[in-house]
């Protein structure tokens, strides 16, 4: 039946009504949660004020960013459990590269994405200009170029960071490292045919381990004042909203986005129509790694502290946001805007339960119930439509 919902009949009115319902449903959930809490006078007085409302966006900030990347992965029918650990790893990399010497593995891992892109570009050029070249030879050249670049860029980063490289370098290393983790996830999933759940579960454990290994479990503090501005107020909200906007545009308005959607809808059909499944899936995981790194930067900036325990369970909040936002975990159906609303719903729930004074022992129960009920309503709706 969900199959039918993904491929609405030719009748354009049904399709229009369908997509409208899908668009509105998450907002309806958010409105319901807000309305429900507003029955309580304390919430009514404190929540709906100019001073308080921006707090919700700030509290949801990192989750919104992580959920953007998660939406891409879930759209392909996959899942990325590693984002929380990758956040911690990128945060620590940012801290170490800015203030101290990062261990070599961080520098070399951060060198992988640029080297990978360059090697891919080399292959593309070869394919265009040297027609009569064996596939194996091209692959060999790509591997050689890639490896050489990893070593060169890695050494350059190590040297630049030998006495604290400054903020720009730190940010670059963090972003690149995030993409590297995502790239690795993507390659293991596509080239190694490892189920996404298992591949990213491995990364979840490994990235957390590397984080602790890099710092002996200590957090990195003493980050520059300038970084602090990104983590609060308008800049934080701007980062979250810009990520959402770009994510939504890429997913709905570009060929890449349409391919990713098609892969999730029906992988075999997408393959038969010539979509490079491995490439676009890997891109989806890399985007997830990138957004995890952006979230890590924002989080590290907020407290000017890179904590090895950061991002614990962030993957679960992000998946919850995407699911509340109307996505289907079997792929082909997700929306970045929906995930934004999902993240906001979770933040309102978290805040509302404290404002209303529900004991924390019960808060988890209520949040869990809301997640289940939202998805249940979604399923029932689809069944009635299909």
């Amino acid at each position, binding site marked *: 039946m969900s199959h039918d919902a993904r491929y609405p009949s030719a009748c354009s009115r049904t399709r229009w009504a369908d997509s409208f319902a899908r668009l509105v449903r998450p907002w309806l959930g958010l409105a319901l949660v807000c309305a429900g809490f507003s029955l309580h006078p304390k919430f009514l007085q404190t929540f709906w004020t100019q001073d*308080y409302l921006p707090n919700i966006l700030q509290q949801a900030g990192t989750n919104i960013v992580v959920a953007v990347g998660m939406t891409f992965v879930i759209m392909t029918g996959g899942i990325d459990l590693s984002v929380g650990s990758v956040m911690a790893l990128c945060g620590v990399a940012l801290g170490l590269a800015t203030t101290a010497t990062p261990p070599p593995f961080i520098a070399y891992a951060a060198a992988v994405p640029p080297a990978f892109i360059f090697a891919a570009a080399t292959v593309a050029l070869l394919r265009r200009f040297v027609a009569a070249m064996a596939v194996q030879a091209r692959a060999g050249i790509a591997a050689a170029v890639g490896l050489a670049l990893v070593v060169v860029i890695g050494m350059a980063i190590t040297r630049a960071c030998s006495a604290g490289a400054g903020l720009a370098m730190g940010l670059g290393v963090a972003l690149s490292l995030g993409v590297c983790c995502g790239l690795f996830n993507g390659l293991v999933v596509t080239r190694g045919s490892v189920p996404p759940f298992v591949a990213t579960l491995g990364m979840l454990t490994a990235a957390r381990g590397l984080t602790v290994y890099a710092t002996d479990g200590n957090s990195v503090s003493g980050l520059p004042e300038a970084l602090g501005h990104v983590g609060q107020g308008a800049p934080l909200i701007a980062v979250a909203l810009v990520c959402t906007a770009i994510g939504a545009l890429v997913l709905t308005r570009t060929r890449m986005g349409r391919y990713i959607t098609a892969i999730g809808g029906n992988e075999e059909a997408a393959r038969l129509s010539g979509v490079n499944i491995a490439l676009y899936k890997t891109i989806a995981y890399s985007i997830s790694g990138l957004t995890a790194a952006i979230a890590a930067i924002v989080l590290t900036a907020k407290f000017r502290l890179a904590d090895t325990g950061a991002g614990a369970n962030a993957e679960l909040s992000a998946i919850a946001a995407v699911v509340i936002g109307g996505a289907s975990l079997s792929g082909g159906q997700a929306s970045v805007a929906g995930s934004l609303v999902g993240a906001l719903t979770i933040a309102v729930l978290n805040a509302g339960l404290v404002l209303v*004074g529900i004991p924390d022992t019960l808060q988890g129960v209520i949040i869990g119930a809301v997640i289940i009920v939202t998805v249940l309503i979604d399923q029932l709706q689809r069944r009635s439509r299909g």
Partner: protein
Amino acid sequence: MVRRFAIVSATLAAMAMLGCTPEKKPVADAPVAAPAEKVTTAELEAVKKAIKPYKLALVVKTRNNPFFDPMIKAAESQAKALGATLEVQAPPQESDKELQFSIVENLTAKGVDAILIAPADSKGIVPALKRAADKGITVINLDNRVDAGAAASAGLALAGYVGADNEEGGRLAGQAMLGYLGGYGKVAILEGIRGADNAEARKRGFESAVSGSLEIVARDTAEWDTQKAYAKFQSMLAAHPEVKGLFCANDKMALGAMKAIEETGRRGEIVVVGYDNIPEIRPYLSAGDLKATIEQHPDLMGRYGVLMAVGVLDGVIPRGREFLVPLEIITK
């Protein structure tokens, strides 16, 4: 006598059935069976050398917490100084209690002379420790206490305890808060993970120090986490703008709460007292955003833990003693 006992137990059973059990303290309140005899600093310092090159194993909750780093480093250097070897094992996450259990099992199977353990789960770890002790391994408890009731019913006798008195630490924090607020006002508490022995003890100590003077208007757990504390305290502050003081059961949560205070534009209006004295907190202490924190010297726990283990193995320190490291209130 027997008959009277029968009557009493029948009454108790009836009461239990009626749902009016005699007042029972929460489990976390269960006192240590009998206050263990203390061992003095001098006695521990007298341990100068291990008779044999003992194999010691230190099992902490996780390496993923700055608290344990000084403990590990101090234990390592003390073991080296005494001529013993020390291996350190820890789960990647503090919440990974089962893994800590397996670590103890594996160490037992491998065979070490002593296990020094900071249990992630005060009760759950008991069967693993019992098996280790049965195999003749000296089990020393560090930091978070093994649950006394669970140990007693499993027949586990620990070879020693080295740690801090968390309730006393909470009391110190409470007294500091009383002083800063001049003896009255409304305060909030951000607690550690519910049910964790040290979290409950700190809260208990704080409450007992301020009860009757300060009114606790909001309490919530932020599970030791900076970001959770930030979000929670932002909401708490909105719901209770009259709050004048905040006790955080660890400094990581205080970091988050202070960010929330700063963003609300109320810097300097709320007295924040933390716990642990982590290095990241120093700038906030000197700026006055954090008024006080409690130092519980994890390095000393590591050092004296090793001394106690070697002392017990050498036979110069009797089994079953405990040592409490001094607590210190840091205000600058």
